[in-house]
Structure formats: structure tokens, C-alpha cells
């Protein structure tokens, strides 16, 4: 074999090897960015749910004070970091698989609590859980309005509403 061919083989293989590595990285890259978005759970996507009628509906969505809560963020517990985008649909929290936010927490009941929007304000409602739902320090016994940034505590999990 001429020397030239061997030299081409020697470096050609290395170049091809690195092209392979970068191709694989390219495939993964797409996946990585898809992954960050996949962490967002969306309860009724924007623009797909029922569009609020202009005028009256618009009026009703304005909160009484402060800014609108647009997402609920899990700040502590096994699911810490999970975000749920808030729309018009209520959000159920509990161990049951069909909850919007499934929390695997020993102190949570199957259907533990529910976040319900009413006239632009989100209310937390305990669904008869065993260990109770707390809004900051107080136990929730009736539907209670949830201010922004105040933790809702369920077992080891705590959830905050964020603008």
C-alpha cells in the first residue's frame, strides 16, 4: 500500500470519528432544549381553551389587587421546580394519578386540594384531606384566596403562585 493511502486512512478515520461525535451531540442538542420545555405542565394551553368574551370577560379577569398569577411553582418537595401554567381551569393536587399535580408525598391524600380561579383570583380549597392544607401558617378550612408568593403547604410540598 502506498504511504499516501495509509496517511489518509490514519487521519481520515480520526476526522470521521469526531464528525460522528458531533453528529451525536447535534441529535442530543435538540433533545436537551425539548427537555427544558417538557418540565412545564400546562393546564389548558393558552389560545386553545374557551376564549373569554371581550368586554365583560376582560373585566372579570382583572384581579382585585396586585398582578395576575400566571403560574404555580412547586418550591419544596419531591417535585420542586415544576411549573404549572395557570389558565381558567381548576388545578387538582393530590396523590391520585389523574390530578393535575401528582405529588408523591406520604402526607398527601389522593385528592388533597384544589386551586380554583374565581373572578381573576385563585382560591385554595381543601378536599377533605387527612393531614390538611396550609396557606402559609394557617390551616385551610374553606376556599381561601391565595396571594402571590404565599406558600401553600401540603405535606412536604409547598406551592407558590407567581406572576
Amino acid at each position, binding site marked *: *500500500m502506498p504511504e499516501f*493511502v*495509509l*496517511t489518509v*486512512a*490514519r*487521519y*481520515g*478515520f*480520526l476526522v*470521521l*470519528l*469526531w464528525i*460522528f*461525535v458531533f*453528529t*451525536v*451531540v447535534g*441529535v*442530543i442538542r435538540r*433533545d*436537551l432544549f*425539548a*427537555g427544558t*420545555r*417538557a418540565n*412545564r*405542565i*400546562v*393546564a*389548558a*394551553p393558552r389560545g*386553545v*381553551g*374557551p376564549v373569554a368574551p371581550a368586554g365583560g370577560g376582560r373585566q372579570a379577569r382583572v384581579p382585585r389587587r396586585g398582578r395576575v398569577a400566571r403560574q404555580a411553582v412547586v418550591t419544596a418537595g419531591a417535585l420542586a421546580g415544576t411549573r404549572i401554567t395557570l*389558565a381558567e*381551569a*381548576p*388545578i*387538582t393536587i393530590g396523590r391520585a*394519578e*389523574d*390530578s*393535575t399535580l*401528582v405529588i*408523591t408525598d*406520604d402526607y398527601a391524600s389522593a385528592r388533597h386540594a384544589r386551586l380554583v380561579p374565581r373572578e381573576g383570583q385563585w382560591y385554595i380549597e381543601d378536599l377533605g384531606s387527612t393531614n390538611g392544607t396550609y396557606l402559609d401558617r394557617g390551616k385551610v378550612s374553606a376556599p381561601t384566596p391565595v396571594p402571590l408568593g404565599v406558600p401553600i403547604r401540603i405535606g412536604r410540598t409547598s406551592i407558590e403562585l407567581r406572576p
Partner: protein
Amino acid sequence: MTGQLRAATSGFQLATRRNVELALLLFVMVLLLGYAAAVEAAVIEEITGDFWVQTATLGVLFFAAHLAVRFLAPNADPVLLPAVAFINGLGVLFLRRVDYAYLTKAKVALRADFSPWAGLGGKQLLWTVIALVFAIVILVVVRDHKSMSKYAYTLGLLGIILVLIPALLPASLAQREGQSNGAKLWIRVGSYSIQPGEFAKIMLLVFFAYYLVKKREVLSLASRRFLGIDFPRGRDLGPVITVWVLSLMILVFVKDLGTSLMYFGMFVVTVYIATERASWLIIGLGLFLGGAFLAYFLGASVGGPFANFYTRAEIWLDPFADPSGDGYQLVQSLLGLGQGGLFGEGPGNGSPRFIPEVQNDLIFAGLGEEIGLFGLTAILMVYLLIVERGLRTALGVRDAFGKLFAGGMSFTLGLQVFVIVGGVTRLIPLTGQTTPFMSAGGSSLMANWILIFLLLRISDAARNPASTSASARPGVGRRNPPEQLHDAPTEMIR
């Protein structure tokens, strides 16, 4: 309203990316074909008519594996299979190249007539066939990784037994042929030998994952803070201490630092994944280093069962003290790597004959001589990407058992590469670990392929899109929220 939402939901289907996998596999085949041709050009000085036979066989095998994944785990990760296929294929072709080196005294014509199914390379090709068949069977049998947790105790017990058998067997039945002082990792029956520890890894991981899911709450309780680290309560250290003592016993009786490090590292990291407390990593590392240090000093002063470890550590500290005796393996390995330099001698141009155990422990040194630092780094990158995909799977899957199992498996794979490559390059004492997917040997190949297919199974669950089979298998994957909520159907935006 619900109907409208459903329709919108189904529009967000995840691409399964099986075609990407196939394309990557084709790339791998081109790469392997190029390597096979380059080797023949250098060793036989001509490219024979059937240089493609081994590569083509590998191609058929990997295509079959691809089909199995396409039908049995359609949402699995697209990178794992091609990346592993590449390393496996390169291993087979390099072993064939080693065969050529041993035929060196024969005429060049003899090499040209060397059958694709003969020698180390042919044997490894055959093992690849068997390993893939087993792995595909596993993919068929294990339809849901969570079902494995039902057999956690059985598998754990089996794993411990498999680890202990070679340690308790007489040395003549447990050591590699011709190595009276080597590690006791094998069970030899006639001319065959199997390495049960490779299978034990996976079994023990199932058990660790299951056990830690049960115990994570307790283990994550912290009692006091010291130097900025939360330390767990004394009594919660029990299981970690138990595994530590067991792995030190492996160090002494199996006579292998690598194996000991593997099992202990595996456990500590699964504890870390389960509890998210970095203090476990620090405690684990401290315990292991302390234990190894103790064994070294006991070896120096007492000898007996610790003597072997002492010798190995001494070789590591100064391999050139006895370059033709004790230090021979490591010295030859370092010389091989040094000879390779940055770009290597070129495929087929090295002299792997001079490196002892080039088909097993030191395959990385043999390969390094021919493809150099540049090529070795690429291969390490491929390993890294495999581990990354595994960890990504662990992040993506929803159930705790799957997370721990996938995380543990990918970490173990990475640790094994670290232990052997670290040994070959004299970063840590050289041990008898196999290079995953590359070293000659059926047990290692089979166990690691099974590991990869289990990862594929879990990643299929993790990447399962929202709109398919959600009601049939609720909560299988993180990206698979139930289809019908009380009033609010949810969906993942891609």
C-alpha cells in the same frame, strides 16, 4: 370544550426519532467499514475481497436491534443504540486486528486467508450475536421496568451470591488462566469462564433502587450541619456502613480494587440520587479512600490477604521499579499510549503484541497506540454521551424506582469506564475491570447490552408522548400526564 382540547393535544405528538437512530447506525457502519479497510491496508498491505464481512455481520445485528427497539420501545432514546453499537463494533474490529498481530510470523498471505469467524475477533463477533439476542429477549420480557421491582429481593440475593461465588471458589477455578495472583472474578468450567460480577451489578442495582425508594425519607433526614454539609443521623448510616464493609471484603477476598469501588460507588450514588444530599457522596468517598488506605497499610505491615492490594498499589506508585516483572503490564500500557502520541500510528500500524492482556484489560492502551489521544478522546466522548443519555432518562422518567435504576445503571457504566481507563493511564491502580462493550469476553458484553436495553426500556417510558396510551398506562412517563383530568385536560407543550 374537552373535544376541542383533545384535538389540539393530539397535534403535539412527539417524534419518536427512530429514523434518526437508523441514520446514526448507518454512519456507524461507514465508520467501522473505514476502520476495517484501513486495518487491512496497513496489516495485509492490500484490502482483501472480504474485508467487509465482519462489519456487514455487525450491521445486520444492529439493524435487528434497531427493529426490536422500533417495535418494542418506539419512544426510546435515539442515541444510545448507535453509540453503543459503534463501541462494540470497534471492539470487534480491533480484536481482529490483534489476531493479525499474533499471526505476524506467518506469511502475509496467511493473514489474508484468516477467516472472519476465527480468533479473538470472530469469537467476539459471536458473543455480540448472543448478547444482542439476550438483550432483545429482555426487551420483550420486561414490558414495564416497574415490574422488575417485584423481584427486587430475589435479584438482590442472587446478585450477592453471584459476587460471592468466585470469592469462595478455590483460586484455580476463579482466576484467569495463568494468573495465579490475579483477581478472583471468574467461574471457570472447562475451557469456558464466566464473570458473574457483571450480571450481579444489574441485579444489585434493582435491589438498591427498590430498597432506597422505600428508605429515602429516612436517609434524607439530616441531624447536624458541619462544615456546611448536612450530615445524616448516625443510625441511618447503617446500610451505607454495611455495603462499605462488604465492598472492603470484596477488596480483600476478590483481590480487586476496581470491583470493590464499583459496588460501593454504585450504592453511594443511588443513595445520593434518592436523597439529593451531597453529604452522602462526601461520606462515601471518604469511607472508600479511608478503607483503601487502611488496606494498603495493613498490606505493608501484616501482609496476608492484604498483600495483593499492597503490591498493586506499589506498582501504581512506581511502575518503573520493576518494569519487566510486576510493573510489566502498566509499563507496556504507558509505553503503548506514549507511542501513539497525539494522532496515533494509524489503524493497524501499532504493535499490540507487546502489550500484555491487550484483548482484555489493556485494550484501551492498544487502541491508543493506533488512534492516539485524539481518537481515544473521541471514544471517551462517546462513552460520556451514553452516560449522559442514561442520566437524561433518569431525569425524564416519572417513577422513583425508574429514576434510581436508570441513574444507577448509567453511573455504573461511567464508573466502570473511569476505573479501567484510569487504571490503564495510571490515574488509579490498575484493576481487572473490563472496558464496557470493548474487551474480549461474553459476560461483560452480554451484561452491558442488557443494561443498555433496560435503559432503552426506561427511556421509552420517559419519552412516551402525552397522547398515546395515556389512559391505558397512567403515569408511566413524566411526559405522559393522564388524558382526562377533572375538568382540565393537560398536555405538554413541545
